[in-house]
């Protein structure tokens, strides 16, 4: 049985994520998971064996706080130094259109391995667009509510009482997304190749053509030379209408 798709350097590959994006992504992944496991100790009402892994309850509390600070710093770092990349990302999310809706409808079938015909997708497909909106928003809520819980005496008491359920709900929704996301971005046979995009920076060219046809054509394919309409150097919102010339 195969876990990850094999990394092939004997086939043409195209760049997908910059060094900065990959560094930030894996940095916040590690710190998020540390926060998650140390936080679950309290959410599950005192799981002693899990606490013991982090040196007891006080140890776990400090791992939670230090990871939280590191995660905040990493996200801030990625945001500042990769600001243009973040804007390009947001612009791609704004291209959410009919093809993305179709993707979302067909996604459950593809998720379990049925063969479906998905319309061409932009840089991020409909599911990734959803993930890109929900997960970062939940992490943002976790950060705001988390700092309120850490320093309750600096905030109005009613905010502290709202922060508790907010922290838990945001934890649950982001973790649900991350479970599916982590699996899709690694062991899922269809989309697993994207793991190498996040790990090494490149994905197989034929995979890119299949899975992100619009992105591929605009960046590396037949439309690569064409200057996209831009404002301030960024591609502008434009719903993808016609199929690129040589996508199948």
């Amino acid at each position, binding site marked *: *049985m*195969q876990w990850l*798709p094999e990394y092939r350097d004997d086939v043409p590959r195209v760049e997908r994520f910059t060094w900065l994006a990959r560094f930030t992504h894996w940095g916040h992944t590690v710190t998020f998971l540390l926060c998650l496991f140390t936080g679950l*100790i*309290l*959410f*599950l*009402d*005192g799981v002693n064996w899990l606490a013991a892994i982090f040196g007891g*309850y*006080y140890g776990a*509390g400090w791992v939670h706080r230090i990871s939280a600070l590191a995660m905040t710093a990493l996200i801030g770092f990625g945001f500042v130094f990769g600001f243009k990349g973040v804007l390009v990302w947001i612009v791609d999310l704004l291209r959410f259109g009919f093809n993305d809706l179709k993707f979302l409808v*067909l996604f459950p079938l*593809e*998720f*379990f*391995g*049925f*063969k*479906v*015909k*998905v319309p061409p997708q932009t840089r991020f497909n409909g599911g990734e667009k959803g993930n890109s909106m929900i997960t970062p928003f939940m992490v943002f809520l976790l950060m705001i509510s988390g700092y309120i*819980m850490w320093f*309750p*005496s600096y905030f109005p*008491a*009613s905010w*502290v*009482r*709202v922060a*508790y*359920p907010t922290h*838990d*709900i945001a934890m*649950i*929704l982001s*973790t*649900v*997304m991350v*479970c*599916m996301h982590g*699996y899709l971005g690694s*062991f*899922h*046979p*269809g*989309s697993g*190749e994207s793991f190498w995009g996040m790990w090494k920076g490149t994905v197989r060219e034929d*995979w890119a053509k*299949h*899975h992100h046809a619009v992105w591929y054509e605009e960046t590396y394919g037949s439309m690569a030379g064409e200057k996209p309409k831009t404002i301030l150097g960024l591609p502008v919102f434009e719903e993808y209408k016609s199929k690129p010339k040589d996508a*199948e």
Partner: protein
Amino acid sequence: MANMTNLYDSSICTACRACQVACKNWNQLPASIKPFKGNYQTHEDTDGDTYTIVLMNEVDNAAHGVDWNFAKFQCMHCFDAACMKVCPKGAYTKTEWGATIHDPDKCIGCQYCTYACPFGVPKHRKREDKIAKCTLCADRVTEGLAPACATTCAPGALRFGDRDELIEYARERVKSLQANGYPNATIYGINELGGLNKLYILTDTPDKFGLPVNPQTYGTINFWQNWVQPYFGWLIPVALGASAVSFVTTRLMADKHQDHPVEGGHE
């Protein structure tokens, strides 16, 4: 065992604050010195080293000018204690006679209880990073003694004993107060929050004593504890389970289409 309660009578209390001192003494708590504010209220609230204070409320009263309303404030030992519900470490327990006890060895200082308590009683003791609050002198009561504050109270404004008997006594007392110029006299603690293991005889309505009139557990805390904690979390195993199922089904289906090996997914 019957509930053992500390009854406080505001019509007898002289605000000498001997109870504050006795509490410090018995529990070996250091002084907590606050800046002088120009009034008698030396401490505005309980703190990590102060389990009880006497609230001094100056209230205008049409009948007798100004009332000086005293109320000894400390943990109310609620029967349905919110502190106990939120504590992720189970640091709170109820004694069989009704005291809410906090175990500092279990406490991790998260302060959930501070914000969940409808009276804001549990306070963070910074030097230990733990919560501290009134124990109803459980260590004394189990030895057959009354709480330190009740023992020391010279005028007898604090009485410790069987809760039902004290309620009987308080009813009589309130009747006589009502007949003697305190028409609003009332008992606090019988039904509040489903019953407090702490009773007050008040010469006026609770709001005139700085006590919440109809205390309720906060809605956000109820939502958190009754809905989010027990149910919402199940979404996570559902997501994990779906991924595990997909791990198997994607591979089984890829095997069926041998012409198109592992690389499943859409065309």
